[in-house]
């Protein structure tokens, strides 16, 4: 089951809404499974302004290379630098140590369009 306290989008990212309009972003366990062993991540640059659905990071696994899309518009305020040396952390702990970035949200309306955990769970069961 996917964690119930997080929000999701269709491209398999999870979003945790924090205080001060900040959000932590990672990829779901399901996405990490699909990718297989992750060997490389190209993180976004700090302070970049991103628009929803922009490709902002690249994840490479033994199987494939995949873009990560911004689930919300805003400014990148933190990236998980530890992943550069240990990208496999995403496979091991996708919802914890494997977080990828934090965003300062600039359009709160977009949050309403994200998927609730039950909706996301249903969408991956369809696959």
């Amino acid at each position, binding site marked *: 089951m996917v964690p119930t306290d997080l929000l999701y989008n269709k491209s398999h990212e999870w979003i945790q809404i924090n205080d001060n309009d900040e959000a932590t972003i990672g990829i779901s366990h399901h996405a990490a499974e699909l990718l297989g*062993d992750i060997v490389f991540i190209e993180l976004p640059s700090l302070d970049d302004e991103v628009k929803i659905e922009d490709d902002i990071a690249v994840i490479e696994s033994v199987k*494939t290379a995949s873009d990560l899309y911004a689930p919300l518009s805003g400014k990148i305020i933190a990236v998980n630098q530890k992943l550069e040396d240990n990208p496999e952390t995403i496979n091991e702990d996708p919802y914890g140590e494997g977080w990828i970035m934090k965003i300062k949200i600039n359009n709160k309306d977009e949050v309403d369009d994200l998927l609730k955990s039950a909706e996301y769970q249903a969408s991956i069961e369809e696959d």
Partner: protein
Amino acid sequence: MLINQYHQNQPIKYPKIKDLPRQYARDGVIGLPNISEPQVVRHYTRLSVKNFSIDGNFYPLGSCTMKYNPKVCHSLASLPEFADIHPQTPENLSQGTLEILYNLQEDLKQITNMDAVSLAPAAGSQGELAGCLIIKKYFADKNETIRTQIIIPDAAHGTNPASAKMAGFDVIQIPTCENGDLKLDDLKQAISEKTAAIMLTNPSTLGLFEPNIIEISKTIHAAGALLYYDGANLNAIMGKTNPAIMGFDIIHTNLHKTFATPHGGGGPGAGPIAVCAKLKDYLPNPVIIKKDGEYHKADNKNSIGKLTANFGNVGVLIRAYIYIKLCGNEGLKRVSEIAVLNANYLKTKLEQAGFDIFQPKKLCSHEFIISFNKLKKETGVTAFDIAKRLLDYNIHPPTVYFPSLVPECFLIEPTETESKQELDNFVEIMIKINEEAQNNPDLLKNAPNNLKLKRLDELKAAKELNLRF
């Protein structure tokens, strides 16, 4: 083991050359091993049988067209008249080779139905880059530098966006419908005054012919943009249709796929490009022209430039020419017919055996996709495990996890050079492996079990890249 490690004797002593000026003489010993001829022969014979190759194994690697390479192409191309000629030999002393290159240009023009060909690109990827650079220069000449985008479907070969990016374009990705066709509405939405071109593979990497290709090309041309044809799947259509009548403006061919020259683990490849008349002057240099019965190297003034020092991979070009002549027009048509027949036979057989085929109702082209998603959910066995188990049965696995639209997939391309016996054998082995997956999944999880090298740690290999022995 490296050949040097057999060396247990004294270093080889070479006779001193009397008149060699001192400053040119070697100081130390030369690092060649002093070993016997049988040691050398056994070493390389052992190495060669460790390798999986089309000469020893069925090799249905989708999108790669690993067809058998006729040995006569190799032996003729190895004749000293071809092999020993220096690229800088004066034209009047290399008319034979130039004639072959010219004829190959003409043959590729006929097969693709395009207006002009350059043999210069040394690989399919270089052909793609050349094509994208042509697009760039064409629009620069027309003062339409606003056209900065190339549209590419999500099922495309990874080289397409890479080539477009390298030529300085932005890539606009468009999705594919569930049935494998391009989403026309999304295409129309993606087109704007910024669109320079679309890059398409047809039949697509899903092994399906794009039924809306004429509408797509009309839409793209109406927007003033160009169509680029990734020729990776040309093996499915020769003599049946061609990129020109589909409306394409530029195409690269992969001689090492469709025209049976060696590839996989070295090649070298060759990726000639062909263009429509209005792009002729942009072709990479050199092109070979015929004038008064003689053949000459010629440079286009408006060319994107040179891609290789001389003519491209001439040895490979000669092999492809011989292959085309061996087959003849009817033969090339038959190549595509049998390639498509073999793929559809294998697809139907596997479907009857209970495997999940992507779009089973549709005729496939020269390749098709099966998915092990259900098997993975039931048994935990992945497409990757099945691929590794196939090695135990002396079969080179098909392409795995590509295209990424279909989860846990194999892309299978048997090619025209396989017999019915070989295809039936593959089906039997797949059925056996499927049973093993149900009854003894560990056998697959640990595969390959019978080879010298067992399951490799791909994660470590990718993270700690070490390319030296």
